[in-house]
């Protein structure tokens, strides 16, 4: 085991800032890629509803 306790794990032997910063960026980028399809689906549905309403009126 490279780390004895949780604070050592967070400090990463002095490189904590670099390691956690890059993992945070990765989380943001991957998170965006996971969320954006869902947003696109919602957008499609909204546009479809709008079109239906326009056709009815």
């Amino acid at each position, binding site marked *: *085991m*490279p*780390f004895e306790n949780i604070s050592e*794990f967070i400090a*990463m*032997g*002095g*490189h*904590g800032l*670099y*390691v956690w*910063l*890059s*993992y945070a*960026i*990765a989380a943001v*980028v*991957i998170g*965006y*890629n*996971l969320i*954006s*399809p869902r947003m*696109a*689906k*919602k957008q*499609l*549905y909204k546009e*479809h*509803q709008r079109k239906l309403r326009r056709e009815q009126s």
Partner: protein
Amino acid sequence: MWQLFVRWFHKWSSPKWFYEMSKPWSFWLGWAALLITTTAIIWGLGFAPVERLQGNSYRIIFIHVPSAFLSEAIYVTIAIAGAIGLIWRIKLAYYVAKICVPLGMSMAFLALATGAIWGKPTWGHWWVWDMRITSMLILLLLYIGLWALHNAMERPESGDRAAAILALVGVVNIPVIKFSVNLVTTLHQPATLKFTEKAPMHISMLIPLLLSILGFYLAFLALMLVRSRIEILRRERKAKWVQQEIEQLGNR
């Protein structure tokens, strides 16, 4: 054998068939990717041993290398899909090529950003004009070009074909770019960065790295299927079955 392949190819190139068949695939691939990547990252962050020269900062490798690999693989995917679209006029190939652009762009960005952060503790600089970094930067610029071209075209069909041609130009150029960048970086700099070359890795670091690469690839495949399905819905919205599908999106 060939006949079988052609039939399989035609089946998969029909948007409706693809839409139906890819659903279970993206589901299972997605969960497998999540499982494998999470395992790899927990392993890499918490349990892999400390590297002798770089200390703990080397743990960035578990996202840096997979994203760098993936960004190059995605560009080749785009070029192949674009070529298929241009040669056999298959709409689905164009859709795949189009939705791969933002995926590849984000991976190239991630590789550059993590590389820069890793460079600070290792080399003492955020940015070094190293061969790999420079080629990755150019790859990101190529992605930006593709994305801008898609956005600029008024009709999505012409955007598809234009971007396919551009992707072909780019993919022919990638080896030349790498070669030339290698030339300029070795001309100007003494070889101080030699230790960035692949040192023989210990197995306890290699396994989480390979797992992470596998997980990233699977995640890419899953996301590609999901996004292609949405692109099908968006582009084929005049078809009746597509309108029914969109109708059902609201129920979920």
